[in-house]
Each structure stands twice: as structure tokens, then as C-alpha cells.
């Protein structure tokens, strides 16, 4: 999807001001900004709830202006903060409303509804025939998501879907949503004002302010290279840098889980079996000479002879003491182009620091 110099004017103020960006297939793109920044307007331009005054929006290379808005909207899921489940319809009727209008067979609608309810962790037998007012806020939002997914749309638009939930529930739903997202591989445009939410979910973030997109980038790009004062203020980069200065490896590490440790001298075949059954991509081997190496699953799989010893595939690792300063760890990672360090106290592995999860913890 592509926005090409799009402007939307409301009563002489530019709600969306000359906005251009691309969204890649399969990515979760977050529009982040305070209220009035134009992020919701941008979202509503995508499914033509409003039309731009200037500029063009392309979907798979076609101008959305040339498409029938109703058909366009049926190919996009839409979830909003107020949820908007229809109170006079059961959960099943709410989810099946568009399939029914598309004249699906009743049995297909039932099958799809059950599938989707299972996906959003609501047992279908228990929830199918309930009315929205009989559900809790979190359950309603799950049904809202299921409804948006009913037609299996390639694109999902979400406007602060977790905004009205209490913080604990919000965190839980965000995590569930992330795992659903991984299963479905959909392109998602997600609007929020909550930086933490943006950093937890986003592949890339577009920071909006006064109708303009100030910067687009991955969470770490925004955190470490904000283009200007406003972005760094919105992201809160300054405070985060302060945090990096006094955090140490032991503050941010993930305690070592035994399943990541693997014996040396194993054959590739044995190691692959263990790693797959433990659902890990990477394991750590401590060699008899005291060296710590990492073994990467894909390296083993690419190798032709599965009888070879894994010792041949060990890669060097960055090792730091527990009191190592976080900012120097980041510098170290940057220079070695790694994403992982091992925290060691004398000869004991204590934990891992993964740069991605550190960044999430910082915000």
C-alpha cells in the first residue's frame, strides 16, 4: 500500500498534510501520535470512510478511488476502540454479518465462526449464541477482532483497539494479538497514542504530529536516531538514554533457561532433533576448553552431512560480566553486528541479553 502526497482538509485545517509512505505486505505498521495528530484520519482514508482532497492512495498498485468502496471495505478488516458489536445480534451473527451478505452457505458461516472464535481464544460452544452485552470488555474486543477477520482480509485496520481496556488486560490482549498476527501473516495498519503499545507491536512506526508524518522507522531507529526534537519528545528518547546509562547487564538479561544449553560433540542430527523439540532456533554450547559458542539451527540444517559434529558450527559469542553497562553492551553489539550477548559470572552462564527485548523493556 502506498500513500502519495495525501492531504485531507477539514474546515481550513489540514488534518492530514501531504503524507507519503509505503506499507509492505505482511508488516505491522503503527501510526503513532497524540490525539489530533491525524492518525485516525489517515486510517479512515485507507478504506475510504473519507476521501482525500489531494493525492492518491494505492492498494497493490491500483488507485483506491477507482474501486467500489463497499467491496474495498469488505477486503479490509476494521477494529475500533469502541468495538461496535451490534447489540441486537449474537456473537455468531456479528462475526458472520459480512459472510452472510456475501451469501455464504449457513454451514460455511458456522464453520468460519467457530474457527475464528477458537483463534481469539473464546470457546465457540460457550460464546456463539451470546449477546454482546453478556460479554466482558476483553471478550467483546476479541469478538470485534474475529469479525474483522471473517472474510480473511489481507489487510487489517485497527484504531486503538485496546485503548479502552485496563492495563493488565491490554497487555494480555496485545500478546495474544501478536501470536495471532504471526499465525495469519496479514498486513496491519495500527493506530495508537500509546508508545509502549507501538514498540511492543510494530515492525515499523510512523510518528505523526499535526497531520504530518515526521519519521518512519523501526522502534530502535526511532529510539536511537530521532530526526528532530518533536519525535524524540514523542518517543521519549532522552529519558530512555538516561536509563541506558545506569542499567547493567544483570538488570536487562533473561535468566538462562537450561533448554538453550547443548552438549558438545553431538552430531548435527541429534542437535537438530533436540532444538526442534525444544522449539528453539539457537543454542549455546560450552566447550571443554571453556569457550562458549552459539549453534544456529539453520546453519545445521543447511549442512549436508548430518553426522558431523556440531563443534564445527560453533559461532563466536559476545560475553560480558553481569555488571557491564547497558550502553557499552549496545556499542559492543553494534560493532560486532550481533543481537545477543551472554552474561557470565566467572565460569557460570547467568543469562542472555537480547537487544530486541531490551529495547522493548526500555519503553
Amino acid at each position, binding site marked *: 500500500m502506498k500513500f502519495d502526497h495525501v492531504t485531507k482538509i477539514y474546515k481550513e485545517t489540514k488534518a492530514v498534510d501531504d503524507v507519503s509512505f509505503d506499507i509492505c505486505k505482511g508488516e505491522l505498521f503503527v501510526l503513532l501520535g497524540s490525539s489530533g495528530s491525524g492518525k485516525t484520519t489517515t486510517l479512515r482514508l485507507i478504506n475510504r*470512510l473519507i476521501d482525500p482532497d489531494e493525492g492518491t492512495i494505492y492498494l497493490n498498485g491500483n488507485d483506491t478511488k477507482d474501486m467500489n468502496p463497499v467491496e474495498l*471495505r469488505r477486503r479490509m478488516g476494521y477494529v475500533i476502540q*469502541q468495538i*461496535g458489536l451490534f447489540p*441486537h445480534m449474537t456473537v455468531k451473527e456479528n462475526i458472520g454479518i*459480512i459472510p452472510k451478505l456475501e451469501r455464504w452457505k449457513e454451514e460455511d458461516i458456522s464453520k468460519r465462526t467457530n474457527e475464528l472464535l477458537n483463534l481469539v481464544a473464546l470457546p465457540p460452544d460457550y460464546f456463539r449464541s451470546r449477546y454482546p*452485552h453478556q460479554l466482558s470488555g476483553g471478550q467483546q474486543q476479541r469478538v470485534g477482532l474475529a469479525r*474483522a477477520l471473517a472474510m480473511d482480509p489481507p489487510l487489517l485496520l485497527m484504531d486503538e483497539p485496546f485503548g479502552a481496556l485496563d492495563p493488565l488486560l491490554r497487555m494480555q490482549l496485545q500478546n495474544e494479538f501478536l501470536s495471532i498476527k504471526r499465525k495469519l501473516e496479514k498486513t496491519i495498519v495500527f493506530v495508537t497514542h500509546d508508545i509502549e503499545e507501538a514498540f511492543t507491536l510494530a515492525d515499523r512506526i510512523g510518528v505523526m504530529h499535526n497531520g504530518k508524518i515526521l519519521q518512519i522507522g523501526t522502534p530502535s531507529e526511532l529510539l536511537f536516531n530521532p530526526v528532530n526534537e518533536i519525535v524524540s519528545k514523542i518517543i521519549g528518547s532522552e529519558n530512555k538514554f538516561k536509563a541506558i546509562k545506569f542499567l547493567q547487564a544483570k538488570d536487562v538479561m533473561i535468566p538462562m533457561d537450561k533448554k538453550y544449553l547443548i552438549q558438545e560433540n553431538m552430531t548435527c542430527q541429534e542437535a537438530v532433533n533436540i532444538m526442534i523439540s525444544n522449539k528453539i532456533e539457537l543454542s549455546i554450547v560450552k566447550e571443554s576448553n571453556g569457550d562458549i559458542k552459539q549453534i544456529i539451527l539453520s546453519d545445521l540444517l543447511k549442512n549436508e552431512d548430518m553426522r558431523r559434529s556440531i563443534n564445527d558450527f560453533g559461532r563466536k559469542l559476545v560475553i560480558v560480566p553481569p555488571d557491564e553497562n547497558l550502553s557499552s553492551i549496545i556499542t559492543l553489539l553494534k560493532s560486532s553486528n550481533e543481537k545477543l550477548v551472554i552474561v557470565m559470572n566467572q565460569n557460570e552462564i547467568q543469562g542472555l541479553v537480547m537487544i530486541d527485548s531490551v529495547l522493548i523493556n526500555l519503553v
Partner: protein
Amino acid sequence: MLDTIISVWATQQLTLRTIQHLSMFFIALSISIILAIIAALLVYSNPRVANIWFNILNVIETIPELALFIFLLPILGLGEPPTIAACVLYSILPIMRNTYTGLANVSNEYIEIAKAIGLTKNEILFKIRLPMALPLISGGIRVAVVYTMGIITLGGLIAAGGLGVPLQAGIHQYNIPAIIIASLWVGTLGVVFDAVAWIIENKLARRYNPW
């Protein structure tokens, strides 16, 4: 006491009168509901004429029932047709006004999301607005039930049959037991139908507008 009731019931043919009364009631009410809802849907999709319509109906509403009968007599003659016509003319306004209000006042949140997930304008009207307006529509019908009961009773004056007849006869013959029994019976019917309509309205409200 019981003897009096039984004798009045027999001499005034109250069983027959009740059947006449109720058949006119259901015919009039059905016509009113159908016409009023269709009219409301038409007016809703063309809101510029809404005010004109409601003003005309308001004027009709202010004409006393008896005067309306007299207007209708040259066109429809005596008996059931002018009575039913009068019932319909009075009942359309409350049902139509409530239907219109119900359609128009569905919370914007639902309309927005319906539009956003790809419902057409007509689908929104029939799948979202109309069902969500049902509690208000039934409220309008309840008002119409009371109107219709009253006007049909008055129809006894213009040879429409029904329970107005024993009342008229009682008044002319100064037959106090007939007056009391017939009016209590009409009153009871009115209260019962109103209660039924009230129960339906409440059920719909809980079903279609639980928040």
C-alpha cells in the same frame, strides 16, 4: 349480579360485538403498522420531506374523532370502512414518528463500524437501523393500540358494530347495567392489550437495546 351480567351479555350480543370489535382492531392496527413503517422508511431516505409529512399528520391528530368521522362519511360511507380509516389516520403518526426517531437515533458508533466493515446504505438501514429501532417502534404501536381501541368504540355511532353499539344502546335506553358492563368490558380489553404491548416493548428493548 352474575345473572345481570349474563342477561346483559345475551341481550346486547356482547360475544358478537367483541368479535366485531377485535377484528376491526386488528385490521386497523395492522394497516397502521405497515403504512407507518413504510412511510417512515420513505421519509427517512428523503429527510427533506420529513417535516412536511409530520406537520400534516400533526394536523390530522388535532381533529376531534367525531369531526374526522364526518369528513370521512361522504367518501367511505357508514360502518367499518370509515372507522378503520379513522383509526389508521390517528395511529400512523405515533408509529411513524417513533420509527423515524428510532431510525435516526441509532448511535453513530454502530453506523460508522457498519459502514467501515462494508455494509451498503440499504443494508445499514435494514440490518442495523431498523432492528435497533424496534423498541421505539413498539412504543409507538402501544400508543396506537390505545387510540385504536377508543376510536373503534366510537365507531358504534356510525354503524360500525363492535362494542360501541351496546354502549350507544345503553345510553339511549338509559340501561345502566348495559352501560356499566359494556364500558368495563371495553376498558378491560384496552388495559389487557396495552399490557401485552408493554410486555412486548420491554422484551424488544432488552433484546435490541440492552445498554
